[in-house]
């Protein structure tokens, strides 16, 4: 039973064409995260929501935005994708906004920019 679901699994977009990735969770966790992962590298945190409070990482480009309309859903919007934005995008949840609260990841959306 998938608990963190990401759609689509694969997304192809054109250079500069806005794209939205979606994530839903059935865990009722307070915190939802978006990570970017490039080939065989560690996931890089872009931002997270604690409930409705948005927390942006200092080095996340303005090109990346997020929305969390309710507890279950969170979206990643890339306003003008560049070739360097091609990556796996991972959504994760945790019960609390504390490091010891383990992350539950979705299976990711692999984004290709042509």
């Amino acid at each position, binding site marked *: 039973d998938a608990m*963190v679901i990401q759609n689509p699994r694969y997304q192809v977009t054109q250079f500069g064409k806005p794209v939205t990735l979606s994530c839903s969770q059935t865990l009722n966790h307070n915190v939802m995260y978006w990570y970017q992962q490039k080939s*065989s*590298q*560690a*996931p890089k*945190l872009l931002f997270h929501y604690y409930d409705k409070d948005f927390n942006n990482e200092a080095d996340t480009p303005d090109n990346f935005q997020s929305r969390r309309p309710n507890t279950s859903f969170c979206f990643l919007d890339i306003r003008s994708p560049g070739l360097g934005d091609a990556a796996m995008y*991972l959504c*994760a949840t945790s019960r609390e*906004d*504390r*490091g*010891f609260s*383990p*992350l*539950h*990841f*979705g*299976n*990711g959306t*692999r984004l290709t920019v042509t």
Partner: protein
Amino acid sequence: TQLLEQSPQFLSIQEGENLTVYCNSSSVFSSLQWYRQEPGEGPVLLVTVVTGGEVKKLKRLTFQFGDARKDSSLHITAAQPGDTGLYLCAGVTGAQKLVFGQGTRLTINP
């Protein structure tokens, strides 16, 4: 910035061999998590270690947290092809942030 260095970055061994993966830092972490990520999937939590010197076992996997809580190791006994994946350690800082290492890509050949 607290960093975690994993070694080796890549490891390819034969089925049945033993191996150890290391996760090192000059900083102290309040706890440390290990994740495994299989190709095309998200990372899955394997274990959390909290106390300095703690050892946890998960079937053929043995995890150890260093006495000073600055490093950790993962030892796999009699590796199997199903152990193939990217192993990520992640340390929890005093500010309750999660810091990932860059991962160890493990391949077990039949």
